[in-house]
Each structure stands twice: as C-alpha cells, then as structure tokens.
C-alpha cells in the first residue's frame, strides 16, 4: 500500500528524471567530444546501493515519477555530525559503520531492551511513503521513503500509560563522525523528541530505505525518523536509542537556540523563524525559472495532523 495524502504533489513541481538524465547525457556527450578539457561536472561519488532485498511483493518504484531526483536527495543533506556543508557529508558519511546495528528501547515500556536492527525489521512490513520534506532553511524536496510506522514498533514494546513523550538519540561515534570530535557547535549526540500522540501518528515513520534502495549513509542509515509535517531537523538520523518518557525531552536545537527552534517545529508559513521567513520554499530540482512554492501549514498534512494541535497557540508552541 502506498500511503499518500489526498493532496498529491503536482508533477509540475518536480524534476522529470528523464529530463535530468538527458541533461547529464548531453553533458557527458559534450565531454566526450572534447568541448571541455576537464570534467566540469562532478558526478558525486555515490556508489549505487544494493537494491533493497526485503521489499514487499508488488512493489513498484512509481515514486521515481514523482519524487525529486535521487541525486539531489543524496547530495543535499544537513548531517552536522559529518559536515556543515550539505554536499561534503555524502563522502564523509561513508565511514560510518552501520552493520551490525542495534537500537536501545528503554523508559516507560513493558519490554525495554537492546534490539538488533534485523530483529526489529523482521517484525515489520516495509512500505513506500512519498513525503514532502521541508527544511527549516526554506527548501524542500519530495522523497520516496521506505519504512514502517513508528507506532508499529512502539506497540511491540508496549508503552506504559505513563509514557507521554518519546526521545530519540543519534549514534555517538567521534571516530567516524568528525564533528562530534572537533566541533562544539551542537551538543552531541543529537537528540530529538516527539509527543506520544505525534509518535503514534500513522504518518510518522522510521525509514530504512529510499528510492527503492537501502538508505544511503548520508541520509541517515540504517534507521532514521521521518515526520513529514515537521521541519527536517526533527527527522533524526542514525537512531540508536528510543526512550519513552514522562516529561518532554530537550531537543538538541532547542537547547542550542531556544528562541529559534521550539520543541514542536511544525511547518507553519505563519510563524517565521526569528531571522527569516517561512512563508515559501525553494523546491529542489525545480529548475531556474520555477518560482518558489508557498509553504503549507503542517507541510500540506493539515487534514491528517491538525487535530493533534487543536487547542494550541502555534505561535507560542512553535
């Protein structure tokens, strides 16, 4: 089953992969003809990942028709553990050891423990989720994730009624994540949090793949959170710990800049960042003469999630 919201993303906003490929072929042809002496176009060293083995039967990579070009998604990541540059983290992240991987699930649950990733995945049915991904920096893309609902994992470990929040933690490994050793810009390891009802929402997923393949390391392999109605920084990468808590955890960005980044971080065009507008976004891959896209409340998922915040002042709880 492909989960889609009622508002499908218009094709006009997305790079047609055919056009993209043609352009590359053109460039390659020009290079072959010797129009340029050196390779002007750097094809990012992103060795294609092995095809994902555990896809459900009947999986069709329809996403390729709608999604942003995979090349863009793979080379435009904010992965501050590796680099503050969105392109550099592609190469740097390849040093991350992701096999074996285990996830610690503790706190207000009946069955706490350290679980091997394979064991967790063997209990889940993987599906494709085509979501718009909106960064707090006012750019967006459309990603066909492969994953499963976070709720279905949490239900397996049985949250207690006292569990009100979920805290997620990224791997702490200064040996393979250079900025964890060298930079004090953020406090490591990276931490994010959700309210329990947000975590249990069917749109909230844990992703293990994208574009029909295993998740690339720079995109958060082997396991990342995806919360499509929140700014991208909520969708924490390389998760090693999931804690169910009675009280709200303090997320890394909120701790670092409490006036700039709140706990909720819901996409909202009406609530600007203190230093920049959130009213519109640049759709990556849209081409030079495509205007910016108007940002939607809850990133276009208002029908599904607005009820979670019905009595809240979204300017206060930003």
């Amino acid at each position, binding site marked *: 089953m492909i989960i889609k919201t009622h508002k499908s993303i218009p094709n006009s906003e997305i790079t047609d992969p055919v056009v993209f490929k043609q352009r590359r072929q053109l460039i390659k042809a020009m290079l072959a003809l010797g129009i340029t002496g050196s390779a002007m*176009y750097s094809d990012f060293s992103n060795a294609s990942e092995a095809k994902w083995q555990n896809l459900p039967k009947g999986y069709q990579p329809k996403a390729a028709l709608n999604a942003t070009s995979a090349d863009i998604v793979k080379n435009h990541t904010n992965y501050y553990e590796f680099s*503050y540059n969105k392109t550099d983290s592609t190469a740097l992240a390849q040093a991350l050891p992701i096999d074996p991987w285990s996830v610690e699930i503790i706190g207000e649950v009946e069955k706490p423990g350290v679980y091997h990733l394979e064991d967790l995945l063997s209990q889940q049915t993987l599906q494709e989720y085509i979501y718009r991904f909106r960064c707090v920096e006012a750019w967006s893309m459309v990603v066909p994730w492969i994953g499963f609902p976070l709720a279905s994992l949490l239900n397996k470990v049985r949250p207690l009624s006292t569990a009100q929040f979920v805290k997620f933690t990224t791997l702490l490994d200064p040996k393979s994540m250079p900025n964890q050793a060298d930079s004090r*810009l953020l406090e490591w390891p990276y931490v994010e949090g959700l309210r329990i009802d947000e975590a249990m929402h069917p749109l909230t997923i844990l992703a293990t793949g994208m574009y029909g393949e295993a998740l690339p390391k720079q995109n958060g392999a082997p396991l990342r959170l995806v919360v499509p109605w929140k700014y991208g920084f909520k969708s924490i990468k390389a998760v090693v710990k999931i804690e169910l808590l009675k009280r709200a955890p303090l997320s890394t960005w909120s701790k670092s800049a409490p006036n700039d980044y709140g706990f909720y971080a819901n996409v909202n065009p009406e609530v600007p960042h203190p*230093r920049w*507008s959130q009213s519109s976004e640049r759709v*990556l891959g849209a081409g*030079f003469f*495509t*205007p910016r896209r108007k940002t939607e409340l809850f990133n276009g998922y208002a029908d599904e999630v607005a009820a979670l915040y019905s009595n809240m002042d979204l300017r206060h709880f930003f």
Partner: protein
Amino acid sequence: MLDRFLKPYIVCFSVCLLPLLGIVIDMIFDNLGPDPIQALHIRLGDWSLRLLWLTLCVTPIQKMTQWRGMAQYRKLLGLYTFFYASLHVIVYLWLDQGLAWGAIATDIIESSYIWFGVSAFVIVLALAITTPKVMVKRLGRNWKKLHRNIYIASIAVIIHYYWQLKGNMAEPLFYLLILVLLLGFRLAVWFKNRKFTKMMIPTTRKIKVVKVDSSADQTLAGQSKTIVIEEVDTEAEI
C-alpha cells in the same frame, strides 16, 4: 607612459570579472549543486562582500605604502562591489522570488537578515550613483561624508551574512576579523590624528608665527606633520 599607467588597471578590471565567468561556466555546465539558485545567489553575495572588503583595503595600503594613485583602484573595486551586489539582488528578485512582489514583501518583512542586506545595498547604490566626477563636484564636502557610509554598509553586510546562518559561523567570523582590522585601522588613525591635532596644531601655529625665520627646520618638521594629518582628512575614503 600612459601604457604603463593603464596596464595594472586593466589587469585589475579583468580579474574582477573572473568570479562572474566562473559562475556563468558553472551555470552552463549545471555544476551549481542541488540548489542552483541558492548557490548562484550566495556566490554573487560572497563576491560582493569580498570586493567590498578589498575596497576597504585600498586606503590602509595607500597610507602604509605612501603609494599615490590608488584612488582609481578604490573606485574600480567599489563599482565592482556594486556590480556583484546588484546581480545578487537581481537573482533574489527574479530567479528566487520570480518577481512576485507580494511574496517578496512578506519575505523581506519576516526576514530580519534581509533588512541588513537591503540597507547595505541602498548605501552601495547611493555611492555608485555619486561616483561620476560631476556628482563629486556637485556634492562638494558632502561627498566625503556620504561615502563614509561605506563603513555602515560593511557592518550591515557582516550582520546580513551572520544572521542567515543556522550554526556554522567559521566563515562570517573570518570576514568579521578582517573587517575589524580594516575598520580598526581607520579608528586608530582617527584617534592618532585627534591627539595629534590637539597637541601639535597650536604649537605649530605658534612656531609658524613666531619662529618662521629663526628655526626653519622645526617649522618644516611641524608643517610636514600637519600635512600628513590633513591628508587623512581630505582623502576621499570609500
């Protein structure tokens, strides 16, 4: 003679066009990365900042080396600052925002970092308009006053740069450090002159009046120092 005088100027003029050439080549070969409009926008902004900083380097270099004839380079670099800043603004208005004026208004109102960019651009625009000799003559003494606003523009530029970033401050801090040195140099000169003026001018004047004939050496020494001070004031600074 004219040949020798023009050559370095033409080299400087051409070198300032190289960043634009690089950007255009990257545009043609689709080498601007996953977010090409932002890359274009940022690279033009970076170069207008660098050229502004270079413009601010001219006066200190001239003072330290006593080399005359650098004013034309200051003018050239200043105009290139305006050139790259204009391209930066055009890319924002046209490519990034698609000339949707309502959206542009919202974006500017809600984005405080843009306020500083707009302020800097307005100043640089005013300075560019008043560059021709006719304008220099027409404005007279006010020309220098107006062009001192370059200092305010440079401070606005560094805030514009710093405020749009989320975390990593290495680059704006690097440029801030250079700006502190450049503006610090002027502040030091200003302080020195003020002290100098207070201390020296009354005595020199006395010497001038009383000892014109009797101690010519002292007078000359005093006068030459006074001239140095005046130079600082009359030098058109951009």
